[in-house]
């Protein structure tokens, strides 16, 4: 673990794997909930957790270096089910990358329990991990100028669901009617870091 100073009042804590980053994030959120950590933002990402807005970043860095941080992600309390029609325009390309038939993509994708590693790109967009090694897919060579809201997509090791229509370079395998982001709802984001997710195949137009 390495804690890098960021500006005057932030720390970027770097670890060696996505799993470690998720575990560190869960631990930091736990500490904040217990009043042991005062920070404006805790932002997990692929291999890092950013602590933005801390009073004494140097002291916190020393504390974290000494602390025994759990290596495993704690069990989640709830699982969000997201119904998906697996009829995306890139389904055949993903099947080809995986070396399976197109109908196998849904079977493989629905068998996984995903976890939101981090959010970014747009409000409510989660980077979901859980696909086994060997299931990574490249981004599309040419990004689409408009990916519809609800598109279920893959890139690298991640699965994501577009919360609203936006440009995007991920491989589209399906779509859902579930609203990922609704500012009028509490919470607005269906997915937040640490949320467990299962995709459930549904038929229909």
């Amino acid at each position, binding site marked *: 673990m390495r804690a890098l100073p960021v500006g005057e009042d932030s720390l970027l804590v770097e670890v060696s794997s996505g799993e470690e980053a998720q575990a560190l994030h869960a631990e930091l959120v736990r500490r904040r909930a217990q009043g042991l950590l005062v920070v404006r933002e805790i932002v997990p990402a692929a291999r890092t957790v*950013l602590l933005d807005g801390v009073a004494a970043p140097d002291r916190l860095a020393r504390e974290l270096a000494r602390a025994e941080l759990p290596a495993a992600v704690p069990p989640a309390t709830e699982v969000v089910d997201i119904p998906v029609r697996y009829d995306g325009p890139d389904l055949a390309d993903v099947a080809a990358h995986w070396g399976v038939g197109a109908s196998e993509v849904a079977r493989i994708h629905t068998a996984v329990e995903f976890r939101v590693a981090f959010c970014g790109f747009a409000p409510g967009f989660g980077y979901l991990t859980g696909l086994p090694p060997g299931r990574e897919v490249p981004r599309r060579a040419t990004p689409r100028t408009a990916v519809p809201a609800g598109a279920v997509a893959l890139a690298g090791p991640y699965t994501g669901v577009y919360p609203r229509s936006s440009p995007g370079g991920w491989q589209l395998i399906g779509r859902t009617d579930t609203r990922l982001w609704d*500012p009028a709802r509490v919470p607005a984001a269906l997915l937040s870091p640490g949320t467990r997710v299962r995709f459930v195949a549904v038929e229909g137009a």
Partner: protein
Amino acid sequence: MTDRALAVVRAGALTTVQDQGRPGHAHLGVPRSGALDGPAAALVNRLVGNPPEAAVLETTLNGCALRPRSAVTVAVGGAPCPVTVDGRPVAWGAPVRVPAGALLDVGAAVHGVRSYVGVGGGITVEPVLGSRSTDLLSGLGPPPLTDDSVLPVGRAAGRYARVDGAPQPRPPTELVLRVSLGPRDDWFTPRAVRAFTTGTYRVSAASNRIGLRTEGPALERVRPGELPSEGMVLGAVQVPPDGRPVVFLADHPTTGGYPVIGVVRAADLPAAAQALPGIPVRFVAVRRRSGGPGPG
């Protein structure tokens, strides 16, 4: 239904509703947003007797024109500009009473970029995640003003500040931004880090609420590619593949994959928000006041 509202007669190039933003949601991918020149927004609120969290209007270069449906107290600050009510000049940087139906015209900035219009009672559009700010990156909050739109105004507190007027900022000849290096300065050649902290850049016309873009010496990296996506802070100086530093402002993305060579001090960002395209920019490396976390 009250008549406390402003009719937008001339929206201007880009006028948005801004308050102190919506920090605390970065882990959901929600930018902080909020007024780019925070002190100017706070000042106009003070001049009209609003609490600091009241929403104001942020204009870009050419102001805006508004017609209140009932009498309001307004104050214009930030970038200095002519202000008129029904064509008659009124004070900039001071509370001004605008009668019902009169035309308040906030003119083009004499220097600087963004003027702020505070209105007694504040702009009371529906908040999203606790803020009324327009976030141009993710589209949260109210859309930018359009001609003929109508903005609700809250009930004024009744007392406004006993301030004769605010001093006009002098036109800046150059923008000096103090930066703490890191966290990814090791992605750049020592020569590039030197060029960054000693060279002169210019503010690019492509700058916006997301970032202050610059033109100048391209910063050469020691390693290619992208970082795994990591959290970004306000003031982060990200260096995209073209090598030209971008200073992240209020609507910046919450995560990013281009290396951050340094972070600009928060106190210097209001000046960045007022820097016109073409103005020289210097990044001056400073030591962290905290002394940094040290090795390990």
